[in-house]
């Protein structure tokens, strides 16, 4: 059984709690053990780097040090958390002066980081060969044939992580592989790596709303029935602010936005409620109550 230090990130506590519960359910089904990182702190998001890059680094360094103490590699469900932890890890491994200074700061919490942790996005834990094979074997009919637009987002692939093949930065395919292993149809659309606007939803609403409009239209054009996301901010933007897009552009989008773990959970037989489906402002009923879905007997957790 693979074990990871699980770094939920601030949004997964309340705003994106459904991502948390569905990740836990999927991990359990796939034999992945997630041990929450002890007393983890915020990764700093993008705001900290705008303000002070050394502070941004020290926030992440603390989490890395705690994971090292727990003796585990980190998985993070949020694109931004993943990116921040990964880049801090790389910076501390590459820059001895930075590492020394960060460790001086970490002393204040009786911590030290010596570069022994690897950081992944939680999706990476579910797209290993073994995991994909397990998904193929265990997947039921719940999302069979469902047309899903896999929305990676931006920071899950950028900035490029050295060691990652170019193709996986320019046009990654593991999200599609996961969806297809689960029986869904991953639709191709040009904006799968385009930013959702992230914090611009707060700091420059008009910009973010336009970016969301582009994404939604792109998914609609590709015939998607649902957009699957890998980041709480992407999901919140696309879903909670879909009405803002409609208001600003006179459109009528009603596109369900679910976490990839919720879709995966459905495929693996986890019940709708246990996956937190039903908490959306844009209803996902169309996904859950598809006509081709066989009787509820295939969902042991109850619909």
């Amino acid at each position, binding site marked *: 059984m693979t074990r990871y230090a699980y770094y939920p990130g601030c949004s997964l506590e*309340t705003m994106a709690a459904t991502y948390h519960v569905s990740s836990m359910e999927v991990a359990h089904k796939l034999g992945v053990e997630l041990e929450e990182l002890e007393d983890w*702190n915020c990764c700093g998001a993008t705001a900290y780097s705008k*303000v002070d890059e050394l502070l941004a680094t020290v926030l992440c360094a603390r989490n890395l040090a705690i994971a090292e103490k727990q003796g585990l590699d980190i998985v993070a469900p949020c694109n931004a958390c993943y990116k921040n932890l990964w880049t801090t890890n790389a910076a501390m491994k590459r820059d001895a002066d930075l590492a020394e200074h960060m460790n*001086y700061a970490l002393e*204040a*919490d009786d911590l030290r980081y010596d570069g022994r942790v690897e950081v992944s996005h939680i999706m990476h834990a579910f797209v290993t060969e073994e995991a994909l094979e397990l998904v193929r074997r265990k997947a039921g009919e719940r999302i069979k044939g469902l047309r899903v637009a896999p929305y990676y987002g931006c920071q899950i692939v950028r*900035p490029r992580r050295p060691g990652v093949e170019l193709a996986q930065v320019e046009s990654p395919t593991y999200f599609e592989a996961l969806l297809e292993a689960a029986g869904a149809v991953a639709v191709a659309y040009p904006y799968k790596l385009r930013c959702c606007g992230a914090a611009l939803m*707060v*700091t420059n609403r008009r910009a973010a709303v336009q970016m969301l409009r582009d994404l939604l239209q792109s998914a609609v054009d590709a015939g998607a029935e649902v957009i699957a996301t890998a980041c709480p901010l992407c999901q919140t933007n696309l879903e909670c602010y879909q009405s*803002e897009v409609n208001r600003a552009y006179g459109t009528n989008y009603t596109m369900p936005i679910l976490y990839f773990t919720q879709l995966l959970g459905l495929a693996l037989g986890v019940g709708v409620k246990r996956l937190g489906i039903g908490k959306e402002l844009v209803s996902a009923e169309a996904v859950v109550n598809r006509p081709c879905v066989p009787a509820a007997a295939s969902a042991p957790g109850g619909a």
Partner: protein
Amino acid sequence: MAIATPARRISFREEVENLLHAEEGVSLIRCIQCATCSAACPAVEFMDHTPRELIALINAGMKDEVMASNTFWTCASCYACSEKCPEGIRPADVMYALTRYSLWKDTFNRDWVAPEFSRRFTRTILRTGKSYEPGYAPAFIFEGGFPGVVREMRMAVRLLGKGRLPLLPSRIKRIRNLRAMVARVLPLDGIQ
């Protein structure tokens, strides 16, 4: 008598590159003005200078125009520009360096939401160790006028009903240590 120093005053481009001394991008002088960064940028329409223009301004030494620009505060940090630049320039890193510099130099516009949001976010983490969305509301809630406030409140109520809005901030156990850590990095009296 001067030793070991260039006799001329450094250019604004070099001033910006000094900010980026620890980053991995190449010199801004390599910019060929191909505008690939601008084409890749999803927020470009909302910037007073496109990424390409900003780099041209930096290279031309137009410090005042650059420092007063909203470009780097409108950047979403998606890194599309850095990924696509054929020369190896990292515009996304330039944007971060300039937001920091504009704060240190106090050249940003205090009416903008982005700096105020960053301020609130920074302080929230130092208070509790974690983010707390409702705390940022004052930074942006009035941007859409009264109708905007009503819409935000409506959404907040709906989210609250679904259990998706945090009521109370969440606090880490060793917040005192976190603050002490931060004080070692940014030596301010009040953080400890």
